[in-house]
Each structure stands twice: as C-alpha cells, then as structure tokens.
C-alpha cells in the first residue's frame, strides 16, 4: 500500500499507509472511542465532513455486512486507524472495508499512532486535517485554505419524501441525515413510516395525518438550519406526539427556547454513564455530539430535563411539559453501541397510542 500522510492544521504530519480511496481529502478531525461497529460509524451521516480517528486499534476485522449500514452512501471524509485488516471472512460479509471505502471514494490511512492523536485532540479541540500523498508546504496551504461547508444537512438528507411501509402506526420521520438504526427500530414496531425532507413544513407533516413524528439525527450545527424548521417543530409538537434524537434533540431544544453551546471537544463514544433522572438508573448509549443544550438556558415552564451525562454534565434528554414531545441527545437506536435505551422507542409508541385513546 502507498505511503500517505495525515496532516493537521497545527502543522503536524503523520506518515502511514493509505487504504480505501487514493484521493486527497480534508475534513474536521474527530475521534471515536467505541470498541466495535466501525461500519455503522463510517456510514453514519453525522460524520459528514469529518475524518474519524478510531481509538480501537484493529479495524476491518469483520469486513462489511449487509445489516450494518447506517446509510447506503457514506459521506465521512476519511478514516484514521492503527491497524487495518483487509478481510471479508464473516459469513454475512460481502466486502472488505478497503473495497467498500474505494467504492465510496473515502480515503483511509493506517499505521497511525491514533492514541497520540486522541490525547492531543482531547485538549487541542477541533482541528482540520487532510489525508495526502505528500506532506509538503503546498499540502498545508491547501489544508489551511479549505473552508468546510456548513450545509451538511442539505448534502446528506433526502431531498424527496419516500415511504417505508408497514401496517402499524403512521410515523413521519424528518430526515436531517437519518441513521438507519432509527428506521430499523420503527420497523421492529411495525410502524408505517414516511420519511420527509427536513425542509417540510408543519402543514406538509400534518397533511399526512401521522400518529407521531420523529426528528432524526444528522450532521453539523443545528444553528445553521434557520428558523423555519423551528417553527415546524413548535407547530407539530402541539398537535402530534414527537420524539427527537441527536440533531433532532438539539433542534427541539432550540424550538423551545433553550440555547446550545459547542463542546470544547466533540464526544463520540459509549462509555459515559447517563442518568435517567426520573428513575435514577444508569444506562449507556452511543453518543455523538459537537453541541450540547445549555442547562441554565432551559425554560423550566416548557421543558424538563430527563437525562444527564454524569461525566461531563451535559443535558442528554428533554421532555415538554405540555405536549407528548420528548428528545434525547444520545442514539437510542443502539447501532452501534449499547441497546438499553431502545425502550425510548416503546415510549414513543405509547405516546402515540395514548393520544388515540
């Protein structure tokens, strides 16, 4: 494999071996601490524009599996790993990771001291980086000149509505860069799903007469999406049970008067204990966030905090006081990561049922 470099905007360069696509790539460099689930991670649209460093050093061991896609057209900018295995031995496996990345034009680099990078980024904060063939002044100039888009949602979310039919509750999913795990959880509960573009108006939603509305996960900053979507949320939550996850949660908070703040370091992992405030019990879930709801900004007449991260104190869940509307920052679909928060989908089902009753 070809010698390539990971370069960072602080001027550092790390030599490694290229895999996947041979293209030059630039993006925001972040790290993911999950033990397993590299396929789910690399196909999750929240990583649009980002180059992902994997903490777990051995990547690629189970190839690519048909049932581990979180999107069909991944848009992450790159993968940085310690050690790559180019294999497709799992019985369910169709592809090796290397082939998959080449098909989707995503570069990867292996042989990198990923632990060093994580230790560096945990204090230095977000940084731009590139995977390049030559780490010369030109490459750094290019990197420094790179302006990353803030229109990530537009680039990954569906422009057109599409259905995922079944026989149960009518659920409208607003797609901000939806991960498939959400659809899988709704399918398991026999929901008749219609996915709408994130630009849908409240009227578009209400026209479908849904039993419930789900605001999906997605990439980037919720502050870049304008106020139209917030109006939609406010209107819909007053009429229909609503469940929001990830970026959806951040928008739900904004729509109800809370403020957001960027985290000094994005957190992508599943080791933080999350307290469910009402029961006081602790659960784990995959978290992937660059922003957090400012606890002090929460209007207590409108919202109740339902979950909190015990490690960094961030708000992890909200519930509306007046409407059957609730949200979580973490990924309740558990793909990848722990499953114990999947019962939130049951809660959503109950909200839809009790509305009928």
């Amino acid at each position: 494999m070809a010698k390539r470099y990971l370069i960072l905007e602080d001027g550092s360069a790390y030599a490694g071996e290229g895999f996947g696509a041979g293209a030059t790539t630039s993006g925001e460099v972040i790290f993911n601490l999950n033990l397993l689930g590299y396929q789910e991670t690399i196909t999750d649209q929240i990583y649009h524009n980002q180059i992902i460093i994997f903490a777990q050093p051995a990547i690629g061991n189970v190839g690519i599996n048909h049932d581990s896609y979180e999107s069909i057209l991944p848009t992450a900018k790159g993968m940085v790993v310690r050690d790559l295995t180019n294999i497709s031995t799992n019985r369910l496996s169709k592809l090796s990771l290397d082939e998959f990345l080449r098909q989707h034009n995503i570069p990867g680099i292996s042989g990198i001291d990923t632990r060093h990078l994580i230790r560096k980024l945990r204090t230095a904060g977000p940084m731009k980086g590139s995977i390049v063939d030559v780490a010369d002044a030109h490459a750094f100039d290019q990197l420094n000149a790179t302006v990353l888009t803030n229109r990530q949602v537009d680039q990954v979310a569906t422009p057109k509505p599409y259905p995922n039919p079944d026989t149960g509750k009518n659920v409208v999913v607003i797609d901000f860069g939806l991960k498939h795990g959400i659809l899988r959880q709704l399918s398991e509960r026999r929901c008749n799903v219609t996915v709408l573009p994130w630009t849908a108006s409240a009227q578009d939603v209400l026209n479908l007469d849904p039993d419930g509305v789900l605001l999906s996960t997605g990439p980037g900053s919720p502050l870049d999406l304008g106020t139209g979507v917030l109006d939609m949320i406010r209107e819909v939550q007053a009429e229909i049970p609503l469940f929001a996850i990830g970026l959806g949660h951040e928008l739900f908070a904004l729509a109800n008067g809370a403020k957001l703040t960027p985290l000094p370091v994005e957190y992508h992992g599943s080791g933080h204990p999350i307290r469910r405030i009402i029961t006081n019990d602790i659960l784990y879930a995959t978290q992937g966030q660059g922003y957090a709801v400012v606890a002090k900004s929460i209007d207590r007449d409108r919202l109740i905090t339902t979950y909190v991260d015990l490690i960094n104190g961030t708000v992890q869940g909200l519930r509306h006081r007046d409407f059957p509307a609730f949200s979580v920052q973490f990924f309740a679909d558990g793909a990848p990561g722990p499953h114990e928060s999947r019962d939130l989908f049951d809660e959503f089902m109950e909200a839809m049922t009790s509305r009928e009753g």
Partner: protein
Amino acid sequence: MQSLTNLQKVLIIGSGPTEIGHETELDSATVQILTQFKKHGVRTLVIDNNPFSVALEEIQPTNMYIQAVTTPNVRHILEKDHPDALIATLGGLQGIRIAQELLENGDLGRYGVTLLGMPTSTLRQINNPADLNATLKEIHEPVIEAQVVQTTDEALGLVENIGFPLIVKPVAPRVDTNRTICENVDDMLTALNQGFQQSRFDQCTLERSVVGYKEVEMVAIRDAADTELLISGLENVDPIGIHSGDSIVVTPPQTLTDREYQDLRDATFRIATEFGIIGVLHVSFALNPANQHFYVTKLAPYFTRGVSLAARTVGYPVSLVTGALMLGQRLVDVKLPSQFTKQTAVMEPTSDHVTVRIPLWPFQEVPDADQHLDTAMKAVGSTIGIGRSVEEAMLKSVRSSQFSPRDVLPSVSNLTDGELISQLIHPLANRILVLIEALRRGYSPDELSELTKIDAFYFVKLQHLLTIERQIQEHPRDVEVLQRARYYGFGDGMIARIWDTDTATIRQLSAEAHIQPTYKMIEPTAGEFPEALSGYYSTFEYENESRALGDRTALVLGRGGNQLGPNSAAEYFTTEMLKQLKRAGYHTILMNTNPNAIGIAPEFSDKQYVDPIQLGDVLNVIQVEHPDIVIVPGNRHYLTRELKKLDLNLHVLPPDQETGEPAPKMATIGVSLFVHQQQKVAVGVMDMIAPGMNKALSQVTAFRMPAELPKAKRNNLVEQAKQAVSERQLTGMVQVLFAPKGDTKQLEVVGVRPTRLTEMAFLSKVTGINWVRMLTRQHIQTLDAAELAKITVDINSTRVALMNAAFPFRQLHVLNRPGSTDQEVGATIAFGSSEALTLSNLSDTEELDQIINRTI
C-alpha cells in the same frame, strides 16, 4: 467516605492451594478486598491453608484461620467467631460449594450470617445446570436444553432426541473439570459412569453439543441498585470443545460484529439482574458464527481468571470496586483513587489495545498426561501480550510463554503432513506453533478455519507475521524491515537469530535508525481522559507516555506465567520483596506477563510493565527507567548472564535454586539458617518428608517443623549446621541437609543449598518472621547485624507445622504420586499439637492429606 453498612466482621473463604483452574488471581483479589475492608474498619477473617498466600500476610494473626478450607472448618468459625457476613466468591468453585453446603444444612441461618455477593437463591442454582437453565429460560435466555438423568437407561432413552455429539456433565460436581463430549453410545456410558461418581447427587445432565461454535465470555459488574456495566468481553480463539482455560483468548473480541457483541452484553446484564449479583459476573456463551444465535453455557458470579484478565486488560479496578459494593455502596457512589481523572466507577471501560492470553501447560513436568486439549482444563498458568495490533499482542504473548530463554520460537517443521493434520484437528499444547507451521506449508486461512473452527481472521494475522518473517530473512540489516518487525511484535532475539547476529547488534541498528519503543498506558478511557495509572506496555509508535519514575528505583523482573515447580511460592516471594523494597524507600517497577500475578496490582508496585521478560524488552525498560537496582529471578540463567555483562546493580532474587554444590541424593532433616555477616540465626529444624518408596531429595515434598527429634538433638544439629555454613562462606537463607550415615541412625551433613522458595514461605509462616523481607534487606544493604542478633526463633516450639505439596495429577488423570518438587502446583499447610500432626508412616500420602485436611 459515606457510611456503609453496619457490617463489622466478615469471613472470607480462601481459595486453598493453587491448582489447575485457579492460581494466584484469587489471592490477589482477596488482598485488594481486604485492603478496602480495612479502610472501612471492617474486621476481616480469612480461612486458608495456602502457605504462599499474600492475603494471609496482610491480616492480624487473630483474624487468620490457617486451616483446610472445608465446610466443617468454616462452620466452626461461624460458631466460634460469629462473623456478620460470609464471602464465598473469592474461593473459586470450592468456596461456592462450601457456601452451598452451609446454606443447605441451615448453618447460614443458624448463625445469622449474611452471604455477600449474591442472594442465597442464586447460590443454590450455581452449578446445578437443570435449575440454572430453568431460570434462564424464564428470562428467555437461550440455553442448551439439559436433561437430568439418574441412570444409564434414562440416558439411553433421551439419546435419539438430543443426537450426537452430546455432552455429559455431572450435577453439582466436586471438581471443576468435567464436561465430556460423546460421539457415540459407548463414549456416553463411560462418561456417565464417571459423572455419577463426581456428582454430589449421583446425577448427570445430557445436552446438545455446540462444539465448533465460538466461545465468548463477558465480564460485568452490578450493584444493588441494578446499575450494570461491562468490564470487557473475552474471545476464545479456539472454538467450543477446548476449555477456555486451555484456549488462546483475545480481548477485546476481534471477530464479533457490534450487534453480536451488544446482544451478549444485553444477555449478561439480564442474567446479572435476574440472579441479583452484587459484584462481578462472568458469563460464557457459545455463538454460532453462521447465524449469530447464541447459548449461555456457563455462569460464574465469582472471581475467575476471566475476571482477572478483563480487569487487567482495561485497567478497571474490579476488586476494589467489588469490595465497596459488598459493603453496600452503589456503583455511582464508589470513589476511585485520584489516578482516575473522573474518580468514578461507572464509566464503562473501552480500550485502545489488544491483549492476548496464552495458556501454559505442565506437560514437560508431567509427560504421562494426555496432552490433547479438550473440555477438561489442563493449563496451570498463562501469560499475556499487549499490543496495538493483534499481531503484536499475539507475538508478544507467544514470546512470553517461555518456549525459549533466548526469545526464539521453536519450529515444529519435523511433523509429517499426516501428523500436522491430526494435530490441527486434535490440538496439543503446541497448538499455536502447529497453526503457524500449517500456514508455512501453504494451507489457506479458509482451509485452516474449516479444519479448526478458528476464525479465518486469526490465520490472516498469523500469515501476516510470516510475511514479515520472510521479509526479515530476505533483507538482512534492512532498517525498514527492522522497523516493521519491531512494530508487529518481533523480539530482538528473534530478529538476531534470523540475521545470524546478536541482540546487541539489533539494538544498535535500531538506535541508529531511531526505532525506539514507545510505552502506552493501560487505562479504561482509550485516551479520552488524562489518567495517571501505573501499568504500561510497549509498542513502536510516535508518542512515549512513560517517564522515568525518578530517584531510587528498583526494577523487579517477574517470573512470567505460572508453571509447575516453585512458582506460586515465587509469586509470594516477589510480592513480599516488592513490599520490602517500597518500605526501604525504593520506587518499585515490576515487569511481568502473568495476568494473575499478585505483585502486578498497583498496591504492591509503583509501576508495572506488561512486556515479555526477554533480554531486548528488559533493556528497553532499563533504557527508560535507569533503575538503581535490577532484580532478576534465579531461574532466568541466560537473562542473568547477559545482564551481568552490563553495568547494572544486579541482584538475583528469588535466589537461584540450582546453585551451590551438587545436591545429595537424599536428606531427612533440613536445618535453615539465616546467615548475615557474622550472624547465623537458626530459623528451623524440619523433617524432610519424601512420601512413597523413593526417598530422593527431589521427592521431598512435605515438611514438618520442628523435626520429630529430641530437643538436644535439634540443638546439636543447629550447631553442626552453623559449622558447615562457616566452612562454605555462604550468606542469605541457607539450608543444611542431613541424612543418616550409612545404616546407622547417626545424622551427618550431606549438603548445603539456598533454602528453596517453598520452604522459605513455610518458615515465614511458621516463625512469624518474614524471611523474604530479611533476604531482600540483606541485598539492598539495609539489614543491621545487631538487629538480626536480637532475633531468636524457638526452634523447639511445641506448636507443630506441616506443609505438603499439591500436585495436578488428579486433574490430569495420571497416577504419578508421589510427585517431585518440579511437579508441585501449590501447597497446603497445617498447624497443631505434636500429637495431632504425628505421622505414623512417612510414605503414606493419604495420611498426609488427611492430617492436613482434618477438621479443627
């Protein structure tokens, strides 16, 4: 610290002697839990008869019951000392069995003793497959349907339904090694006969065989508020059919999808909740790689080697946390030491390295044993390798399994193709070498996976190592190849052998090309937080995290994985030595690869390196730490010789057991002296007992002290011993051997040798003076002759002590008794009056066992 429960006195059932199935990991966990209890003012009683127990050194003599770990003896303590609570989870399967018996016969209720760690309803079900499966079925956990049978006829009636291969297991077995895979009716009848005898209820279960499935273990921790977290998953490289203790184990699991892994995590939590576990839970699963279906195969709500490995590899302080949970704390309230940035016990560990554990088998010492690996565990120890790739971790673990003192892997190229195939299908202890040889001969990963049911991933990794090996062969002295070789775990010795040069040349080439080791911390957050833990491993990357510990440092090289011979005694020695070095103001650094070692716990050493104890790796650590003294164990002759060539302050401890004059053929009395400058302190006069007909010195495996001799005679032997020592200019802990002269009863000096490690531990336990510390102080020159002169040992004590070696023969199904010293796996000790410990017939091993295991 918040107030805990009102527990005041707790009894811990100790683990007894090291044997196949458990080694020092239980003692290690006991020490840490004791420390935790002590902090909270809980008085802790321990019953154990393992003379090499470090836990027994940590408690007051009044809290110590040095007795056989049996139900009557435990009951006696409940009756006499009235502990509030009982801990059975530190005594292995035996501890659980004793607690079960105390529960069944009503003793727990009678004496008002609370069982810590699990409810009594759970205690009742462990090791009763039928009960266990019924509960697991209730919570919809997939289990392999087990049918209980009491007669062979019943079994024959069920065969058609279950089909072959099937597995026979005794119900509530007395031993831990007892699942038999049966291919046909004959196999089954044999297994049933044996199983009925091993069962406490004369019952066996029959069940479908899942041979060939993946074996995955999960280690979790739970508190009374039902907070649960996974410490780590362990993947067995070998499939079901080979005991997990005999399998190469990789952690974190490498060939599972996230979904498979999370499904097993979910199941583990459901089980922990259902069974009300407080503390650790170790669950084993059989996972069908074809369809992701799994079965629960074993449930161990107690400390095991799996728990120890899981904790070691992620850096989560399992024992400390379990101790707090047992005292009634909740996980969220447990405050970890300040080395953990967040000081919380509820962060679920993640990992940024790979750990591989390789078992060590006793077949060199017990060649009669059947060396095939199957469902009965045969390994006596293990060793780990940690790295940043599977290759690196794998190769380091193989290099640590002490195939070669010079760090070169042996070859099995002499096998015929037929033998090779046979060994692929029916693996032997040299499993890993056979797998490598098969790849060398051109078998593909897929073919080998088909034959062995090992995931092809591992063959791809081994093949990669062979590719690198070929590059080393083809490019002598090429620094790029050298870089790659070191990066993937090749030792300096291995590379030197291929390039037909010495280690020094390899090291010089590396230094010139700046190919230097970088040490990474073993910590549970994968770099998310700036942890300050003390465990490190090497790799060859960009950033080195390990800084020299500072002034006055001692580097102690451990002995690696447990093997037969004086190993558990050596572990005791090393730990006590570390304590003494610390007391003398040294910062201690331990290098070891035994995941079950006691000394590797942060309580006993300031810094730990988990790296092969091979010349190159040792020199790498020395290069970082610049220790003031280096201590190398006496059994590492090549390493010692090479280190002596360097400018190091080198000490050989534990002392070399093979130095001195040629050993005499036999001896009946041993007189131990501690010799320091002009002082010769008499430590003990003991009977050297070689049970059986052959009285050779190597068969002396039992000791009685004081020796059964008149007082005057003992005193006289001491004088003779001092004389013998003076003539030989020896220092340290010395043993003078006596034997009858010719056919007379007259005893004469027949030899002098360093006191063996087992006897040194025995002497420490009997005299109440820690002779390991004395010896250590002598080496580091903090021993004051005047202080020593004040020590008097009553060599004519009326309290008699007996120590008897334990052997692995029963588990290995060989009839080797009497055994020899190099076959010892552990030992037991007993104290009593001279009458109680009288031996009528010194050749009778049964009598020895009976006396040692007697009810107090």
